[in-house]
């Protein structure tokens, strides 16, 4: 088990010849029924290339969170399909989905979602411990260093600042070298200085570790570090841009709001 995880993820990542680790086509999501039904997604298709940071931006209520939940297999689409690392996930059973999460998916949450009774290092190692995989000491040490937590290993979340907590959470998302990491408003609960640090950590993870990340955010500054930004409004992707500055993103968003 211990040796296979990294190998398997590598294998599944390389498998699709398209170079995309995630593909979604014609996703719709309808909540409720009849007159009160709300269409959160109205036909979204997208591909996420390997080793890039893709940002999904949109005003609140645009459907960006719903999109991420569906892409990550937390929610099921009303129609359409999602493929992660070559596996169509909307038809998977709970146990197959669990297996997929262990191998291929990492999560970063707005509210960190750390376990309060575990130390920073234990939190980081949790996905491996759940999967029953023995951690590679070298990799873990490197990861802890990268997150700037070398002297915080034995602290509990309550003893850490918000930024430190989010770095623990990022470490936790990266530790199993997943095919793709989903970050849900990772800076939404942080002040602007700390947000900058976190964005830097995410950026370096993509640059140096070739980690694929999909990030949902409504902050222009966060989206600015992305290789690619998808603008979503009223349940549809309305624009896709590459390498935009924060300033340009703000303008885009204003246009969307006015539309």
């Amino acid at each position, binding site marked *: 088990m211990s040796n296979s995880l990294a190998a398997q993820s590598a294998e599944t990542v390389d498998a699709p010849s398209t170079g995309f680790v995630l593909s979604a086509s014609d996703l719709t999501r309808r909540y409720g029924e009849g007159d009160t039904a709300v269409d959160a997604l109205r036909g979204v298709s997208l591909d996420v290339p390997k080793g890039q940071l893709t940002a999904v931006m949109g005003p609140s209520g645009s459907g960006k969170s719903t999109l991420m939940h569906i892409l990550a297999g937390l929610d099921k689409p009303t129609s359409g399909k999602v493929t992660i690392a070559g596996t169509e996930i909307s038809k998977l059973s709970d146990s197959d989905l669990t297996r997929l*999460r262990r191998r291929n998916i990492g999560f970063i*949450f707005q509210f960190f*979602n750390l376990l*309060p009774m575990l130390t920073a290092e234990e939190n980081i190692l949790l996905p491996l411990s759940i999967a029953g995989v023995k951690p590679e000491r070298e990799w873990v040490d490197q990861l802890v260093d990268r997150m700037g937590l070398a002297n915080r290993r034995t602290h509990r979340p309550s003893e850490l600042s918000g930024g430190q907590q989010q770095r623990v959470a990022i470490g936790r998302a990266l530790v199993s070298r997943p095919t793709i990491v989903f970050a849900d408003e990772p800076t939404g609960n942080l002040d602007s200085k700390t947000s900058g640090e976190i964005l830097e950590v995410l950026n370096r993870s993509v640059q140096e570790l070739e980690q694929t990340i999909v990030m949902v955010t409504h902050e222009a500054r966060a989206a600015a570090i992305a290789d690619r930004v998808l603008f979503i409004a009223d349940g549809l992707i309305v624009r896709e841009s590459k390498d935009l500055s924060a300033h340009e993103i703000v303008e885009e968003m204003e246009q969307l709001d006015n539309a």
Partner: protein
Amino acid sequence: MTRFALKALLGRKLRTVLSAFAIVLGVATVSGTYVLTDSIDKAFGSIFTESRNGSDAVISGKAAFDLAQGTGVTAPAFNESLLQKVRALPDVRVADGSVNGEAQLIGKDGKAIVYGGAPNLGFSIARGNSPFNPLSLVEGSWPKHNEVVIDKSTAGKEHFRIGQIVGVQAVGSVQRLRLSGIVKFGSVSTIGGATLSGFDLPTAQRLFGKPGKLDEIAVASAPNVGTNQLLQQIRTVLPADTQVRTGQGQAHEDSKDTNSFISFLQKFLLGFGGVALFVGSFVIANSLSITIAQRTRELATLRTLGASRRQLLRSIIIEALAIGILAAVIGLFAGLALAKGLFALFDTVGFTLPNNGLTFETRTVVVSLAVGIIVTLLASLRPALRATRVPPIAAVREGATLPESRYARFRLPASALLTALGFGGLLWGLFAPGLGTAGILLFMLGGALLVFIGISLLSVRLVTPLAGALGWPATKIGGTAGTLARENAQRNPQRTASTASALMIGLALVTLVTMLAAGIISSFRGSVNEIWKNADYAITAQNNFSPIPVAAADAVAKTPGVLAVGNVRAGEALAFGKRINTTAVNPPASQMFNLDWQQGSGAILSNLGDDGAFVDKGYAKSHHLELGSPVPLTFPDGSRELFNVEGIFAPPTGGSPFGSVTISAAAFDRHVDAPQNLYSFVLMKGGQSPANAAALDRTLKNFPNAKVATRQKFIDNQISGLSSVLNILYVLLALSVIVSLFGIVNTLVLTVFERTREIGMLRAIGMTRRQVRRMIRHESVITALIGATIGIALGIVLAALLIARVDFIVLSVPVGQLIIFGIAAIFVGIIAAIFPARRAARLNVLEALQYE
């Protein structure tokens, strides 16, 4: 994951300890029961073994049939000439004869010395150096004619000194004997509250009314003679009314009575441990459920990190396992303390139990740990399954609720079905023909369990209306705080119902017991009032149930002013191949008793003569007896006689003092060694008056074990025995109520924690600490009252079912007591709220609002 589960527990120490405590009490009761009964058993065992240590064989009188245990009816004594024959046998080295019986010592205040229900043992001591004598002399010398030796503990407590005159009473009036010595029994530190008195053989024979007779011969064999050989040889000289056993065999026989008492005590106490554990399982299940609801986000996060449903299930079960182990271990040792406390408790109420030090058997450890852990695990199953339904998306969604289980819509019908099955089982156990005792108990127990579980599930539906009604006073007294309390109690019916259910079980059982007791008391009162005719006074033993010497009634008859004394003697006989209770009356009884005669009339009581008998209706029916039918009775001494039915009476609901067959006292006395009266009833010139009562008291001075009572007093005395049993039951049931109290505390603590932000908001908009405390307190009281209401109602229903089955109890609802239980429930609620309310009031407003 295991480490994670354990860390989760450590992270919630308060909750873990509170939950564990619910199981601790139950386990402690189980372990304490075993320690207590094992210790008593061992102490008694050594008493019985030591008293037979020197005996290779013991010859004793033999009854014509097996006597019932513990009724005080003993085998008849045999002729002492047998002793010479036994001594003459070649293989016999030593043989000594003895008589024994109940012997009351009279204290300096002139009253009989009795410690609780412990026996007052009197016996003859052949000689001090007899190999069969288990006593050793502490002081003074062995008794000679008209002398007595007394055990050290009694002598110490009563300040008896050697040389003084001590009153001793057995079957006759008080005898005044010189105290020659103080003795100690073997190595046992205390023989409980029993008193010992030893006499020389002739004095003992006189005291016990067995002149020229012996109860036992103890035999030691000559060297190199096997026990079997000895027994063989003894049997050649044994008359028919005697038997011989090995010393060990006799010790075993001696211990039968106490063994059945100990085994009863054990089952009785274990039953209450079981109830406490059952209630505890509700508390555990509920607090696990609440924590799981509160940890939804955490569990969902674990799912997003790749944890499978099975892993979550396992982690919750491991948590429960850890709580179970913790609780079971604490409970096991708390049981030791409990046993010690019980010994002390029995001691202070005067019922000293024999104690050679606490016995801690392996079985105690195994059973206590096993039940504690298994009960906790079973209780965790439902919450653990709930945990598996937490969807991963709850990690990112605020306020996500658990999805309804696939089976949710079957919950109501399933609970109703469970309840119906439970009542079905109960009814089947109560009314189905041909079930054995085990079958009846099994159906009733299983039925009751299902009823409790079913009702607790159904009570989810009752919470909202009940909280509305029971919370109404809170809204009036408590203002806004009270109104909010009522809303809070209704907010999560599932949680309120589970919390209240724990209390419901305890109160249902308390109500059941109270209803049965009220029924027994009221039917007993009715019976006495119906049967009691002209008598002015009744004479009973001090303890209201022991037989009293016939000599007492004879002395009363000679008291100035006494017109007549009607006696009821009680014994056993064999009739139609079965052992039955027989009673006997003397002719004046016809003036004392008013019976409902189906055939014959009250005049029969004074005309039974040598061969007349009357029987109760039920016995007559089952043996097809009519007037003139012969009833053959075989007495314990082996004599057989025919009696003719001269009357058939219907006993009142509450029973009568008469057994299945009643004969005349004269006929009875011909077959019974030392006859004794169960009750005597006295008719006096001038009726009840202080002078008459004083005259009777004077006469009974010589019979310190007897006392006089008017009709009202007689009823009260008889009921007082029941009251003390009732009080013991209440104390034991209080255990499960305490467990449920912890359940309420636990729920409230968790609820306060959950509503931190809300309470902070209420404080921020002007609610005072006092109002916060009041809000929590009212919610607690409403929850407790819901439990009490359902519990009391269920208790009444269960009692009505039982009473419908049992002939001798009438249904009566003790309204006053039930109201007291309701008030007690309010106090339970108030006490349970103290700690959680204080925590809630102490919340820092600012922190509470920022609390994420």
